[in-house]
């Protein structure tokens, strides 16, 4: 509520400044016509106008009350100067008083409406201005001019009221938009999460797509079709928001249960690479409990490494050794393939820097790579338990 008031007051002050300045400009423009150039009153009023302009321009600063009061004082003095310094009644000076007292003064005093009892001070100031005007105007026009000035004061009050009363409902509307947006973002966040959590699924989809990109050569047509069918089905389930329980005929099971044994899932990875023509030989413990998120990342990392072996090593057998202690689970992926100079090949080209290292690091794990030409490759993966 406090914030709303601060914003309302700032807007009122901005409005008051524009309104006041416009009234002053109009008043001065009328007064500055050649008809009054011969009058002493005109030349006396110029510095007062300058002062009034300064006051109006400063209305937005912190001491609004002071500047609004200053402008009122300037306007009253200008009125009296125009009325009494040049004795003969002049149409021009009378005309210049209307925007001065009917627009500039009430416009600037509009800033007071932000304060407690502001309307009281507002009308006090306005009436002081109108009173000065009534003294300055020739008796013949007095009634009409006073009525017009009062109308002007009423108009500025209406504008001020309109501005200040528009803010709270508008801010409520903004808050509503914000709430709707928050809900939208939460939904999108959940959706993104769901899709990204289905990493194992995406991993196999990526592998299948990569095979298809090579027109599916080198793999049996039947196996590729089968794989495509499984992947399409899982993507469909993901899209429809169904739980990703594996199909009866699916070779792999990205199960979404609290704790999963590594064994069955490792088997599914092995089967998949079998279909792609890489023989994977497991060593070490096959029953490891890991939280699902960590398990996913771990399996993803292993299969990414195996994919690299399949593509680059030139051999058809890879060894995966799983060991564990009370703090970490380790996987060592080894092949006896052609190997490479680790420093010579950019990490990006291996494709594992971002995908494997970043994901494991996020979980507090790590990935290290050892290789040299002709001596095979070993990747050591670690995740905390």
């Amino acid at each position, binding site marked *: 509520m406090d914030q709303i008031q601060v914003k309302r007051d700032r807007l009122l002050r901005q409005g008051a400044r524009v309104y006041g300045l416009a*009234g002053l400009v109009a008043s001065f423009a009328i007064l500055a016509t050649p008809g009054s150039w011969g009058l002493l009153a005109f030349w006396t009023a110029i510095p007062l106008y300058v002062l009034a302009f300064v006051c109006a321009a400063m209305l937005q600063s912190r001491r609004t009350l002071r500047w609004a009061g200053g402008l009122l004082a300037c306007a009253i003095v200008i009125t009296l100067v125009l009325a009494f310094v040049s004795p003969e009644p002049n149409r*021009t000076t009378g005309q210049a008083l209307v925007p001065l007292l009917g627009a500039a003064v009430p416009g600037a005093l509009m800033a007071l409406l932000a304060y407690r009892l502001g309307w009281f001070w507002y009308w006090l100031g306005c009436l002081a201005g109108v009173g000065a005007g009534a003294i300055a105007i020739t008796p013949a026009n007095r009634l009409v001019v006073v009525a017009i000035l009062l109308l002007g004061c009423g108009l500025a009050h209406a504008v001020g009221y309109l501005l200040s009363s528009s*803010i709270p409902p508008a801010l409520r509307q903004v808050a509503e*938009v914000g709430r709707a947006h928050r809900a939208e*973002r939460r939904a*999108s966040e959940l959706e993104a999460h769901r899709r990204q959590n289905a990493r194992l699924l995406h991993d196999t989809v990526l592998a299948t797509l990569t095979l298809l990109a090579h027109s599916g050569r080198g793999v049996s047509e039947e196996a590729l079709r089968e794989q495509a069918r499984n*992947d*399409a089905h899982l993507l469909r389930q993901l*899209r429809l928001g169904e739980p990703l329980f594996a199909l009866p005929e699916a070779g792999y099971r990205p199960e979404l249960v609290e704790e999963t044994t590594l064994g069955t899932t490792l088997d599914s990875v092995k089967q998949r690479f079998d279909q792609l023509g890489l023989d994977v030989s497991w060593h070490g413990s096959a029953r490891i409990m890991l939280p699902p998120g960590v398990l996913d990342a771990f399996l993803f990392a292993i299969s990414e490494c195996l994919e690299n072996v399949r593509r680059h090593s030139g051999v058809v057998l890879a060894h995966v050794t799983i060991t564990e202690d009370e703090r970490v689970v380790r996987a060592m992926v080894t092949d006896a393939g052609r190997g490479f100079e680790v420093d010579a090949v950019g990490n990006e080209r291996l494709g594992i820097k971002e995908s494997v290292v970043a994901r494991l690091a996020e979980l507090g794990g790590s990935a290290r790579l050892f290789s040299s030409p002709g001596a095979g490759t070993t990747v050591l993966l670690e995740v905390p338990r």
Partner: protein
Amino acid sequence: MTAAVLAERASGRRHAAIGMRRLWVGTTVILAFQIVFDFANTIERIDAYRDTVPVFTAWAVLLIADAAIVVVTRVLGEHLPNWLFALWYAALVLVIALDLSAAWGMPNPADSFTVGLSAALSLVLALVTRSTVQVFSAAIGLALVTAAAWILMGGFAEPNLPETVYTLCQMLFPVLVAALITGSFRRLMRRETEEMLSHSAIAAPRLTVGIEASEQLARLDLAAESLLSAVADGRMRLPLSEEVARRAGGLATELRLHLLESRSKTWLGLAIEESTLLSEKVRVEDPSSSAGLLGTRQRAALLSALWLLHDERSVSSRSPQQQIVLSFASPTRAIETDHFEAIAIRVEVPGSTRMMIDPGVWEHFARVGRYREALDGLGMRIDIHCLVPAPRGPARGRTDS
């Protein structure tokens, strides 16, 4: 033009009208009073006209045109097609022309200008559907037409001049003031809306994805699904044709990129990126994504402080290139505990002094962490030292709520 730009424009339009209804109704009522007032003036001067047909025709045209615009704007929900605006403007010019022709030959033409004043003020009806600049140039156009006619009619001759200037001011200034006030109202609402929208990012987990990236991923998944099912049920023959194979490869690359890239954004990056106002003034350097470790309260406070700093920058409009820079250091283990980590945040506000910064900023910074501010040759530099739950172990990625 990208989809993102289009979407942003659409949402800008959607939010531009927030809270304007009340303001618009108010100005319509004020305009109605002005019309009554000016009509009374016409009646008062009725004997001065040689022929009253033009001036009453003008009144009829003005009332019909304004009523039509009010109804259309209301029905279309704060929207006015361009051609209708042009037609309406033509009607206003016609009204002014009729009023001027009615006063032709009078000794002081500005004095009998009545319906024209109402026509000029009518432009405030377009404030909700047109930009400040458009409305104001329309008002200047009307004033210029009138002034040109008065030059011919002797309005600028010596005894008439004050009256003429007075009337021209009456034509221009109310519309100008209304347009400027509406402009600041709109700016305020835009800023409020953007702040509100940016605050929706603080509930994000440590690393997050934008709404757009999330939709993109869904689209890619769908494309992959249709391709794979086409392969599965034999609609596409194996081995695949060159073109389909290329499509599969492209899809795989994009999908891979998406799965990786989307992990690298923090809530702060999103909040700033999705707000046009904030991204102009603030830059974040956070290579290790430390911002994601901040708790919900710390995030809200930091964002509020940024918005206040943004306000200070938009008020004092000097050198807009000087951005506020937020740099996050990587988290370091806090002394003697495993449960918390320390992050050093440096906020640089070039060209600013302590006096110029809203006191609320310090309150917010204090809620982020312990801060120290210093003034150097370039501006304010604020160093915030904040403690966050350690990201590894059970507290990982969690935000206190």
